[in-house]
């Protein structure tokens, strides 16, 4: 059930996801989310889209090819046969 007392949290969703809130604000929202508020869950989902977009504000950069080689070597060691 939507808790009418949570409207003031709406403007905090994105900052919470970014880890930019003070300890107090972060704690309030975390405790509220732990109670499973569907209104805030929907808001957090939209806020994640905004956080995603903000991440895209950086310019793409080409990593050194060595990183991919190491990654594939690392996972190939652990990988069971391809199904």
């Amino acid at each position, binding site marked *: 059930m939507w808790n009418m007392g949570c409207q003031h949290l709406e403007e905090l969703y994105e900052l919470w996801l*970014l*880890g930019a809130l003070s300890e107090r604000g972060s704690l309030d929202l975390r405790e509220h989310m732990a109670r499973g508020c569907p209104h805030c869950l929907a808001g957090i989902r939209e806020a994640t889209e905004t956080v995603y977009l903000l991440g895209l504000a950086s310019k793409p950069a080409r*990593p050194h090819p060595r990183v991919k080689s190491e990654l594939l070597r690392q996972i190939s060691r652990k990988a069971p046969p391809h199904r």
Partner: protein
Amino acid sequence: MSVELPAEDLLARVARHDVDALSELYDRYAPRVYGIVAHILPARDAAEEILQEVFACLWGESARLSQEGNSVVAWLVVTAREAAVDRLRALRKNAANIGPQASIAHSGKGSDPGAQKSKAGVLPPSVAKSLEGKTTALKPRLADVARTPAMGTVPAAWLPLPKEITLIDDRLVLLHKVINQLPKPQRQALELAVFGGMCESEIAAEIGEPLGKVQRSLRAAVTFVKHRRRAVCGTWAANI
């Protein structure tokens, strides 16, 4: 002409231990992910390590992620930013424990007149340089960092579905336009939050403004971007 497979189809193949599918996802998204990580972390070896760990995590979590059906690129971007910011915070904390230069990293107003801010506006080159080559000793494992969820644990219910979000490079110009429309103090505060890994009080100390003003700036900036999100993604026709 070959048609590019949806990322979610490739992820389903990764979940069946198809290394070629992971290789294809890497080729498609590594520049985007590395761009975010390298913007946050000044040291290249740390940025490369996070990039590798994010894709290794995608491999390890592929079965769960594929089942949940969320957007792969959204998971990659959100996870990479969190992981890089966690590493940056840990490096900053370690720098604070190393010596007096650490206060510069937090306040940006140290007594060293030659101190210049790094590209992320967080560590001056003198501190960043001192960390280079020491990251093996300094860096905590990602699992040790508790301020935000550990890598790859963003709840599925929080992530958008593929149809709700797209990575359309030619629309990113609109995103930059939106961000450039922000007043400079708001843009600066948002940059420090998104790519500097700073919380409100750290931003206030960094830019020398009262906490209340920084809080208002951040909320206004986020609201501005949020209200233009659909237009940037192309799901609303709107002038920006």
